[in-house]
Every structure is written in structure tokens, then in C-alpha cells.
């Protein structure tokens, strides 16, 4: 496994009107790692993801990505440098078809300047789009309007849209929430194998410990805005604090 540090946070803190949502978060993530972020509701997991991806500006502390300070970066700047994300509630274009969603994502990631004025339906992009839809197992739904899809399908599309920008690090916020028991392992198998293939570093927020145990290299457990455990899954899930505050 590569050992280059890709993400580092130092004393990261976020408070809302005096209420501390995240405090003293110090992490170091190496390239290619797959990390599970666990914690009860309100523990600060999503706040952490939002700070890394520019949705929220930290109150104090710093975030370094590939050695560069990216604290307070804007979401689109985060995307440009390779920090991408998916959302707890799928953020897709509901009135468009699955393929139109992905075509927009692909054209924005591959084109710039005047090339954005070229027709979106070019053959090369379309073929590439079909390939990704196939990889994520949503090719059969490509012409369906997204609002008619199941949560699981929307999640897959949401993740596929984040991945087409070739992220160096991908943060997935509860990729299996709202997804049926039958679908969740299927989704994670598809997503994790695709991301491993591309060597993408992954941090994902998850409540399902079966998923965590099965897919991650390392677990970060959050409680009241702080990391109370940072260890491999077998060790973390047996940790006393994790059992008391996270697993209940």
C-alpha cells in the first residue's frame, strides 16, 4: 500500500452559535486507504465531511490536502483539486434521466472554456457514460427520470457522478442509508471495487457495522464532535469507548 499522506487535519473545530459540533480533530489519511467514519447521530461525522469538502468553513484549525492548505476552500475548488463527495440524501438532478445526469457530470469534469458550448451529446462522451453506467449497474435505468428511481439507484448515481471527476479522495456520506438490506451490500461491492480499481482514497460515513467491518482498512469513531478511536476495524469495534458511545 502507498504511504504518502494525502489528507491531514490539525485541531479542526466547528461551532454553531457557541455549540461545538467538531473539536480537535486531528487525522492523517494515506493514499489508497479506505476509512470508515462511525458515530451516533449528532456526533459530528457529517460536519467533518462538510468541512473537508468545503460545504462548511471550520471555525479554527487547518486542513491539508497533498501538503497544501485547503482550509475554507469552496466546494467547486475542492472538486477541482480532486476532493469529491456524495451525499446522505442523494444530490442528483431529479427531473433529468440517469444518463443526462451523468453526461452533465462528465462534461463538466472533462471540458472547460469554450468546449462547454459544444453539444453535450457527443458520441465519445456517450460511450464513456454507458461504460460507467454499466460499471455501476444502472445501465438498464439510463433513460429513466431520476425521480422514479429507488433510493439505492439514486445513491449509485450520486456516487457515480462524484467519481467521474477522477477524485483523489472521495468522501461518501452514508452511502447505504435509505437503501434496502438486499441492496446495500450489492451497492458497496460495486462502489468499493470500482474505487479500489482507480486507487481512490475513500472516507465513508456509515452506521452499519457489517459494512464497516467488511470494507474498511481503518475506523474513526466520533463522539460529541471528537474522535474517540482511530484504529483498524477489528480493534476499533472492540474498543470500550466505541462500544459504550457508538455501538451502545
Amino acid at each position, binding site marked *: 500500500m502507498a504511504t504518502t499522506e494525502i489528507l491531514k487535519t490539525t485541531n479542526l473545530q466547528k461551532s454553531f452559535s457557541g455549540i461545538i459540533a467538531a473539536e480537535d480533530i486531528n487525522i492523517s489519511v494515506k493514499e489508497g486507504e479506505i476509512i470508515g467514519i462511525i458515530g451516533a447521530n449528532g456526533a459530528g461525522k457529517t460536519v467533518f465531511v462538510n468541512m473537508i469538502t468545503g460545504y462548511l468553513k471550520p471555525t479554527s484549525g487547518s486542513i491539508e490536502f497533498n501538503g497544501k492548505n485547503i482550509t475554507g476552500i469552496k466546494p467547486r475548488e475542492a472538486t477541482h483539486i480532486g476532493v469529491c463527495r456524495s451525499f446522505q440524501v442523494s444530490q442528483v438532478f431529479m427531473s*433529468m434521466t440517469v444518463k443526462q445526469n451523468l453526461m452533465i457530470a462528465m462534461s463538466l469534469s472533462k471540458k472547460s472554456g469554450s468546449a462547454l458550448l459544444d453539444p453535450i451529446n457527443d458520441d465519445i462522451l456517450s460511450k464513456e457514460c454507458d461504460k460507467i453506467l454499466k460499471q455501476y449497474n444502472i445501465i438498464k435505468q439510463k433513460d429513466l427520470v431520476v425521480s422514479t428511481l429507488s433510493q439505492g439507484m439514486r445513491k449509485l448515481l450520486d456516487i457515480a457522478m462524484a467519481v467521474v471527476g477522477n477524485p483523489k479522495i472521495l468522501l461518501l456520506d452514508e452511502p447505504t442509508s435509505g437503501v434496502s438490506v438486499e441492496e446495500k451490500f450489492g451497492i458497496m461491492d460495486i462502489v468499493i471495487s470500482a474505487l479500489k480499481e482507480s486507487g481512490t482514497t475513500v472516507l465513508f460515513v456509515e452506521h452499519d457495522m457489517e459494512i464497516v467491518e467488511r470494507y474498511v482498512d481503518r475506523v474513526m469513531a466520533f463522539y460529541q464532535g471528537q474522535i474517540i478511536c482511530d484504529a483498524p476495524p477489528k480493534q476499533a469495534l472492540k474498543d470500550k469507548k466505541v462500544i459504550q458511545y457508538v455501538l451502545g
Partner: protein
Amino acid sequence: MFKGILKEQTIQVGIGFVFIVVLLGTFILPEWMSNNFMYGLSRGLAVLGLMILWRTNLVSFGHALYYGFGAYAVAIAQKYLGVTDVFLRILIAIAAAGLLGFVLGFILRRYREIFFAMLSLAFSMVLYGLLAKAEFLGSTDGMSISPSTMFGFELGRFGLFYFIGFVVILSLIFAHAYLRSSLGHLTTAIMDNEIRVEYLGYSVEKAIHIKYVISACLAGGAGGLMAAALGQVDPDSMVLWSVSGELVFVTIMAGLGNILAPFVGAIFFEFIRTYAYEFAPQAWQMIIGGTLLAIIFFLPGGLWSLFQKINPFKKEKK
């Protein structure tokens, strides 16, 4: 950007439509009817601009700002620079409105929904106030526009009609090319989900700004053409809030289904207004209001939805 655009059905039908309207207006119909076609085609440009904004859920209640600015730019260029050439006139109108849209766009792109609508209205009323007070621009009497020329020759009414048709075709081609592009597809994407657009790496504000400038250019072009067609500009008929209201009215009436819809809607509106004024001079506004109500109740997708029900290319939304 324009690759293969003339092969697209929307453009072919659009060219055919404009061709028929111009033919009817210049050879077949009486002058009063012909005028309705000419004004409808011209105002349709401003409605097209509104439609492009509307597809992002941005409704401007003040688009007469650009419509009037384009018209006054033509009048000022004539008064101070002696410009009567129709090509120069339309270019000046588009450039002036586009520049104003570019400047105001920095403010407006940060607002949505009712705030966007009312701020647009506020800017248009500021311009109205300035024009109504500016004596060197004719104050409330406005300014007259001399007949347009082309290559030094007077264009005449028919010539101007052909020119308007030409400008409308160019605008249809441009609007279609824009809407089918990646940038144009952001129109609907932004309406659906701004957060996702930002996380795909594109600035929502920038996309709206581009759209706003395009919309302003189209409205300015419409104003320039109307100034040339009417031979007169004044604040009440070009910039007043009721002019903006009419443009919104026609956009709702036309529907957002196709880039041709604004022109169909604008021509329809000219006829409704003419007949309503002819047959009920004391209650013509009531007839217009009733027409809009009927369309909202029975054709919520606007007049264009009627065409979609009967035409063979209803799937193509550009």
C-alpha cells in the same frame, strides 16, 4: 458550438416558421395584421430571453430594462452619432443591453425567486425614472427614430421585416446551440440542484450570470428592432413595469417547451391585444387577463403544449 445545427428539427421548423410569417406579413396580409407579425417576432426575442432564464426558475419582472435600454441605445446612437444602418443599430442595441446585463448580473446572480424578480423590477424602475427625467432624451415624450438604412439605402417596411426575420433566425440558432450545449444543460440542472452543480466543479453564479447576459442581449435586440419598427421610443412604452409584465405574461402564455414558443406566443398576444382593443376598448385588459386565466387552467404548459399534442416532434425540447 454550431456543429450540425442546421440539421436539427427545431431549427428547420423555426426557419420555416419565420419564413412563412415574413411571407404572410409582406405579401399577403393587410398592413395592420402584418404589423402584428412584425412586432410579435421582435418582442418574441425578449420573451426568448425570459424563457432561457425561466428554465432555471429565475423570473425577471424587470426585463423591460434591457428591452428599453436596447431601444434607447438605438435612439441615442442616431441622435449623437447619426447611426441609421440597421446592422449597426441592432449590434448597438445588443451590445448596450449585454453590457448592462453583465454589470447588473454581478448583483442579480446572487439572488433567487422573489428577490431576483423584484430586484429586476427595481432596476427597471430606476431606468424608467432616469429616462422620464432626462430632458436631453426627450423626457416622457421620448425620441423619434428615423427609418433604418442598409448600405446607405433606406430599408422600407418590407426590408425591415426581412431583416427582423433574419435576426430572429440567427437568435433561434444561437439559443438552440446554447441550450443543447453542456453549459445550456446547466439551465435545468441548476433549477434541480444547485449544490450538485457546485460539487461538479462549476460555479452556479457564473452559469446564471452567463444566462442573464444572454437573456439581456436578446431583450436588448428586441428593443432595438421595436425601436426601428415603431420609429419612436419613450419610457412608457419601452421601460415601464407594465412592459415587463407583458413579457412575463407572454412567456407564461407561450410556455417553455421550445425556443419557437416565445415567437408564437408573442404574435398571438399582439392579435389578442389588437382584437380586444378593437371590440372592447373599455375592457380590453379584462379580455387579456381572461385569456391568460384560460391558458393557465386549460393549457398549463402554455400554447406550445397545444402544438406538442398535435405535432410529431414533441419529444424534442430545445
